């Protein structure tokens, strides 16, 4: 009897080990495949849906539409509650209408490397996250979904869970969580139509929502004069060069394939100690740095934990040639 019990325990342990190993080895490729498919679905599918974006005490409903007409991509995002934003994208041209600013910002045609990514950065993702595909199917917005979980491998990034349409892998729900599991931000569709009857007039800014269009200057690629002495695993610069904004500001972009951190550097005359501002999942940090006799204001914005922004700001420095 005792022999049988020992054998039973041993057999159970072997089974558990085998199942864990097979789970770990098979879920990452499956998850990457699903994430890749999700990314492509945003460009290839036609859709008209309403989703709720919630973080902390804020909740907002938004309508998103996308279609391909004459080989050109049309996409729009409209705030349904506060009327604070309307974003249109036609091909790679983005029109952002901010009613409080009374202008419609029309970005000039974007050229590589600023074009939208249509694939997943699998190598970066693997370095930063363990990926698990859920075994069970549930329903969101009336459609069957499969869950993909990204568990951070360190404390420098948040966790993510995606619920994708089982048929076309469109993203129907996305949770962003702290490492302790606390929910930071949720996006969830309440309805979506994958056969919408959209016309080009659906992608025109609402009349009276802006005073005049303003074309922002063409983003220019300039030599990157800055570097990080340290980066969390998986994070790297998205653009090899910096992007020159107006007024002498340089912008860099870091990503681990899921989280992004934008870096803005501009000359300043005012010394500023480090300060951190938290807005839901978004953290912004500011401080001045001195290089020789010149002060620079460094601003970092990203959906990463506060210590990540603090640490990145501490290791930012002029590039060593």
């Amino acid at each position, binding site marked *: 009897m005792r022999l049988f019990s020992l054998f039973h325990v041993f057999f159970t342990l072997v089974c558990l080990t085998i199942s864990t190993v097979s789970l770990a080895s098979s879920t990452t490729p499956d998850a990457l495949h699903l994430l890749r498919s999700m990314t492509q679905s945003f460009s290839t599918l036609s859709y008209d849906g309403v989703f709720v974006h919630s973080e902390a005490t804020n909740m907002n409903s938004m309508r998103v539409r996308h279609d391909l007409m004459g080989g050109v991509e049309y996409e729009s995002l409209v705030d349904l509650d506060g009327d604070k934003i309307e974003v249109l994208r036609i091909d790679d041209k983005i029109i952002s209408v901010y009613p409080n600013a009374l202008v419609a910002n029309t*970005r000039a045609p974007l050229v590589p490397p600023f074009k939208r990514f249509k694939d997943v950065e699998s190598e970066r993702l693997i370095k930063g996250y363990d990926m698990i595909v859920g075994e069970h199917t549930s329903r969101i917005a009336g459609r069957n979904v499969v869950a993909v979980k990204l568990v951070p491998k360190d404390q420098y990034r948040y966790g993510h869970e995606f619920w994708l349409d089982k048929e076309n892998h469109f993203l129907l729900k996305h949770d962003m969580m702290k490492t302790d599991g606390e929910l930071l931000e949720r996006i969830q569709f309440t309805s979506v139509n994958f056969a919408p009857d959209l016309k080009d007039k659906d992608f025109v800014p609402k009349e009276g929502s802006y005073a005049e269009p303003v074309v922002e200057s063409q983003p220019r690629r300039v030599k990157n004069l800055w570097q990080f002495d340290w980066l969390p695993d998986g994070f790297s610069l998205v653009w090899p060069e910096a992007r020159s904004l107006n007024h002498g500001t340089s912008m860099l972009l870091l990503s681990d394939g899921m989280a992004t951190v934008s870096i803005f550097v501009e000359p300043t005359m005012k010394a500023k100690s480090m300060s951190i501002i938290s807005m839901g999942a978004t953290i912004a940090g500011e401080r001045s740095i001195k290089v020789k006799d010149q002060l620079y204001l460094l601003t970092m914005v990203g959906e990463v934990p506060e210590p990540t922004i603090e640490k990145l700001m501490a290791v930012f420095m002029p590039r060593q040639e």
Partner: protein
Amino acid sequence: MAALNENASEMLTSLSAMFDGEASELDIERLLHADSAELSRQLEHFHLIQQTLHKDSTVTLGLEDSLLLRVRAELDKDDELQAEEPVISLEKNVLPFVSPKKASPSRPNWRVMLSGVAVAASVSFVIILGGNGLLTSDTVHTNAVAEVRTPTSNMIVTPLAELDKEVLQADNIRLQHYLRQHAEQAAMTVGQGMIPMARVVSYPVKE
């Protein structure tokens, strides 16, 4: 003489419009053709008022040196860029709105550049109004400053004691700009369509 005064007055009006980020193409042309020495003098004068009122303040116009040179350099740079960069024509495929009718090669960059100094200008503008009564000994300059902008009934004049708050507001406007830039770039990077742009709604806005 009257014509000279009129020209000076127009130049100051254009300068004021530029500081407020409301400069028209005519204003820009006027400033470009204005007498550099006179323009520099006015800018120095603004700076002097600022320094007089706020010796310890870190608020600076940042425009006092060779504005016109910078403006012209910027224009030249824009022209070069326009010549170098291929223009992607979408006219056949997209709506008329996407190709703004008013867009001329240099105008959009100008507007952005000028709207950029509007943040600093809002601070400097407060200084000018507040300083008007304090610099009575220099009547010529006082009059000149008064011509920069005539207060209207609905204009909010921020007390000098609240200047620090104005500086903070300027910081906030800059941060708002960065947050939007970040949201737009994140939307282009993480493969979730425009959905990351939803965060912009919860970002602070200029009140």
